[in-house]
């Protein structure tokens, strides 16, 4: 019951109340892994589905993600103690020449909502920075975002850099943003494109399962 309440509070974006209830669940001896999976990630999964259907919008997703991030801090030491690992590692950034970040931020939050560890490289990220970050952090996936038609082509350079570094066979490359589509994804040799942030997180999960 308390896990359902956590999920509902998270969905409504109430950070303080979510955090308090997570603490209560911990104090009551609820398994931290259940709090994470059924409470926090359950709430994020639900809001992700609503986002895909245009039932909620960007602000609700951001608020829910903030509630998750604040609450998860309480769980981190307990999860580490129990040897619980993230479902996978992703490095994410907006490609070189492009300073737009709200789309990238949304995908990052949705990925965290699926249990990924996400390394945020920020905006204006060079192809080699994506690749180096993926190698250094042993990432499963590189996520590239672009809003501009003049910068989307940098995504192809990321794919080429990953191939040159010999990591593309083990690191998937996902792309997203207003100017890109499935056709462009295939054309540049990337591994996945989705139309929205929630679907990106779903696809990422399929790459690590």
């Amino acid at each position, binding site marked *: 019951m308390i896990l359902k309440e956590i999920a509902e509070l998270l969905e409504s974006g109430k950070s303080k109340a979510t955090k308090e209830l997570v603490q209560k669940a911990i104090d009551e001896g609820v398994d931290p892994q259940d709090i994470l999976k059924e409470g926090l990630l359950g709430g994020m999964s639900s809001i992700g589905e609503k986002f895909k259907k245009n039932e909620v919008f960007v602000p609700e997703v951001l608020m829910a993600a*903030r509630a998750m991030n604040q609450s998860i801090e309480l769980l981190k030491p307990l999860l580490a103690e129990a040897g619980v690992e993230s479902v996978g590692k992703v490095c994410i950034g907006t490609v070189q020449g492009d300073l737009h970040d*709200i789309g990238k*931020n949304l995908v990052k939050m949705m990925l965290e909502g699926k249990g990924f560890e996400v390394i945020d490289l920020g905006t204006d990220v060079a192809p080699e920075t994506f690749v180096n970050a993926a190698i250094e952090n042993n990432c499963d996936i590189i996520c590239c975002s672009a809003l501009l038609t*003049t910068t989307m082509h940098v995504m192809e350079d990321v794919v080429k850099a990953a191939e040159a570094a010999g990591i593309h066979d083990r690191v998937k490359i996902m792309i997203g943003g207003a*100017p890109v589509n499935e056709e462009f994804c295939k054309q540049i040799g990337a591994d996945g494109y989705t139309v929205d942030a929630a679907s990106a997180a779903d696809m990422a999960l399929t790459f690590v399962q």
Partner: protein
Amino acid sequence: MNISKFLWDAAKAEPRQGLPILSFPAAQKLGVDVEQLVKTSELQAKAMEVIAKETDILTAIGLMDLSVEAEAFGAEVKFSKNEIPAIVGQLVSDEKEAEALQIPSLEAGRIGVCVEGIRQAKERITDKPLLAGTIGPFSLAGRLMDVTEIMYICYDEPETVHIVLEKATEFLIQYGAAMKAAGADGIMMAEPLAGILNPEMAEEFSVPYVKRIIDALQDENFGIVYHNCGNAVPRMLDSIFSQNAVAYHFGNAVKMDEILAAAPADALCMGNVDPASQFAQGTPESIRAATKELLEKCGKYKNFIPSSGCDIPAHSSWDTINAFFEALKD
């Protein structure tokens, strides 16, 4: 000129005339880069003129450079030779900074450059009305407060956002009045950030301020075209149409035929051929097909003017742009 009547007459006429948000590709025709264009009045005037004269665009249209207003407030701008300028950083993060924010003068940043560009364009273009381009109030506040951070602040400290919106609105009224005095027949006001809000938030943080700008500036000879290219638009149509703009411009995140089906017959709507996949990356054949499809679905509405879904990227091929206009004539 009565811009409202002009646009309504065009919407009812056959063949359809388009009003795409077409300004930056003029840089190709002038042999200059985007940075030069956004910093020079004369080039801006020439850009509006070359498009007005060499295409069948319904009205001349000013540059949709949505960094100008935030720059005037003191925000940092990153210029590029190939892309429209972008705002970086966060100028206002809390109530104290919001209170301290000064409404800039019309000499700040490149405001004077843009107003002078409109004045010169009006002298050069005598056969078409001229719409200046400005940002909308919530989108300006987002650039001052960071587009992600403002979403949190809307929840945590809504009064802080309202302080910034009050100042943004006051400035946009002054800027719009300057454009009007310089000879513009109206303004295309871009409010894209409101399009990702939920309807309740748009009702609180955008609509009243847009309405205030429209009420202050709009008259028989000067009209506001409201642009919102967000995907949340279908959920907020009633409040959008309550703003009393002379026309409403929508992006390719929505289905134009569904918008028109929901719109009252006295709301003039424009949209929405994809600027990225068609104007920038498409071919003459693909944009012709996309434009014809749009006309097939929306041509029956007499409150519709075909357009791009948003600002057309600077590097878009002129063959493709011309094919959009040709498709309207067929």
